[in-house]
């Protein structure tokens, strides 16, 4: 597909359905979007000590993220340099080396070939012929402990790429009394028969909750108030919040920045959700935060009201609620999302229990909320297969978006589809750039 025909797929207020359904475009996306962008991998707490590793994907590329003996983080392609078998089958662990099951080729945590059987059987050292060991992902960087890598040799630095979205990662970390967060509590892996873009478009879509989540809103509204400290309270409150009146959504801040990023703010405040749980643990948490930041600093941090932030093209996170989702495109109509919870170091354990209760309702594979999102992604994918109409309309708020600080734009209303138009602007840049 040539550049001109790709350009024709994205127009100011609409996109061609092929961007969701065409397998050829999907292959191009894997090379040009996922092959170029900085992709989130996870968090440094997953590889705290030398030898620690976890496996994940960058787009469809299977990779191992390791902490090498020199303390650096390496990202290695999970494919034996000899005959191509995956060398690591474990989700996470600690090891000195990776041994291929097929012929025993053995690699260090930096990916370098350490030994192989029958090394004398080659005209020149086998390590030379295979380029030294496991293929290394060329660029790896961290921001505030969040690990990113890029499959491209060249491109913007991570700081340039994230731009003003960095403030969402700052918010994530600054909420911790010790100034550090860590991955904890397991990982949800939910999947749907639909394109990877659908989930990223949905997370800052403020018009969908009233319709997609109508049944869980309705069911939650009939629940009488719970006893103080009830486990269910944070989940029920979240379901109720999805039913907020239009004026709440209209007044929600929705910002977009370069490279397709966006975030939603001024939405949930702690008096609505966390503090309102009226648990002494929240007062204890606030006191711990004040100890590090002072009362004004703590008030500033707790006054930051972000909901979803999107680091395009593979990450959606909730700094205020310690959730981070990594999007793995599998095929043009198949996507897997890994959802992680984080613990605020230095906060009372009760805060983490609320994080877990929240994650079960927001990211749980059988959640009364998430299952309706997944259902609608699948119906959208099926509908987009229809040939009756080729265009997907993204015009809400178009022409009314406002320029804002640090080169960002903001929807005049929180119900604007500005974040989707912005994602496609980035998509088009990736897809049509020469290299």
């Amino acid at each position, binding site marked *: 597909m040539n550049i001109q025909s790709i350009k024709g797929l994205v127009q100011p207020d609409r996109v061609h359905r092929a961007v969701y359904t065409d397998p050829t475009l999907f292959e191009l996306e894997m090379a040009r979007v996922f092959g170029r962008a900085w992709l989130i991998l996870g968090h440094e707490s997953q590889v705290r000590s030398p030898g620690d590793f976890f496996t994940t994907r960058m787009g469809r590329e299977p990779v191992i993220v390791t902490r090498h003996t020199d303390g650096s983080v390496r990202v290695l392609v999970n494919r034996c340099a000899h005959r191509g078998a995956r060398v690591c089958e474990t989700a996470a662990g600690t090891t000195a080396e990776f041994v291929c099951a097929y012929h025993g080729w053995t690699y260090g945590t930096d990916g370098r070939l350490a030994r192989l059987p029958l090394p004398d059987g080659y005209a020149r050292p086998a390590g030379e012929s295979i380029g030294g060991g496991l293929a290394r992902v060329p660029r790896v960087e961290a921001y505030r402990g969040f690990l990113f890598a890029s499959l491209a040799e060249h491109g913007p630095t991570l700081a340039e790429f994230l731009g003003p979205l960095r403030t969402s990662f700052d918010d994530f970390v600054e909420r911790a009394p010790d100034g550090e967060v860590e991955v*904890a*509590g*397991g*990982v*949800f*892996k*939910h*999947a*749907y*028969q639909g394109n990877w873009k659908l989930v990223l478009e949905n997370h800052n879509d403020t018009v969908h909750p009233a*319709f*997609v989540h*109508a*049944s*869980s809103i*309705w*069911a*939650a509204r*009939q*629940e009488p108030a*719970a006893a103080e400290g*009830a*486990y*269910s309270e944070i*989940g*029920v409150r979240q*379901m109720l919040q999805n039913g907020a009146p239009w004026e709440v959504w209209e007044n929600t801040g929705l910002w977009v920045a370069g490279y397709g990023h966006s975030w939603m703010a001024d939405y949930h405040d702690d008096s609505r959700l966390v503090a309102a749980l009226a648990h002494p643990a929240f007062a204890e948490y606030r006191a711990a935060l004040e100890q590090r930041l002072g009362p004004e600093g703590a008030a500033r941090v707790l006054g930051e009201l972000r909901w979803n932030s999107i680091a395009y093209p593979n990450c959606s996170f909730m700094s205020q609620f310690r959730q981070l989702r990594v999007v793995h495109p599998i095929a043009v109509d198949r996507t*897997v999302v890994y959802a992680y*919870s984080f613990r605020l170091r230095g906060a009372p*354990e009760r805060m*983490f*229990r609320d994080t*877990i*209760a929240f*994650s*079960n309702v927001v*990211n*749980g*594979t*059988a959640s*009364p909320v*998430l*299952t*309706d999102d*997944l*259902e*609608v992604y699948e*119906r959208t994918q099926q509908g987009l297969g229809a040939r009756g109409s080729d265009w997907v309309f993204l015009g809400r708020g178009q022409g009314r978006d406002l320029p804002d600080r640090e080169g960002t734009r903001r929807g005049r209303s929180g119900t604007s589809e500005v974040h989707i138009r912005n994602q496609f602007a980035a998509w088009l840049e990736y897809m049509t750039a020469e290299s």
Partner: protein
Amino acid sequence: MRAADDVELRSEIEQFLYHEAWLLDQGRLDEWLGLFTDDATYWIPLQANQADPLTTSSIVYDDRRLLEVRVRQLRHPRAHARIPAPRTVHQVGNVSVVDAAESGDVRVGSTLVLVEYRRERQRVWGALVEHRLRRSTEGLRIAAKRVDLVNSEAELDGIVCLF
């Protein structure tokens, strides 16, 4: 406990579990909900051998209140993921009493094979199940139910059926 009591208890429990499965397969979910005690928990762990539901996420961890929301949701005309409701067969087997105190709860282990059909797609689930049953004036009631899916750690499409 005498051997005859043992046989009687086992039979009573088996009948109870079959009845529970029948209610689920018939879509009689309000009656199913009625089998749970007010302080019941319904738990589908995320991890194999998961020790607790409060510090690790769960596919489902419902107290009575969340379980009521879950069942009530089905009645809404726009319960998108649940209309049409899946048709199911719950096959309960290998029922065994893990422990039973004279005056306390009875812990019961069983296996579950569940065949689910919804919208042109059939899924098969396998699980190890543990019930904690409590005797009440209305007969046995579920104080806790834990369902360990064999594929709980897999990449899973949305789950809407009840186990």
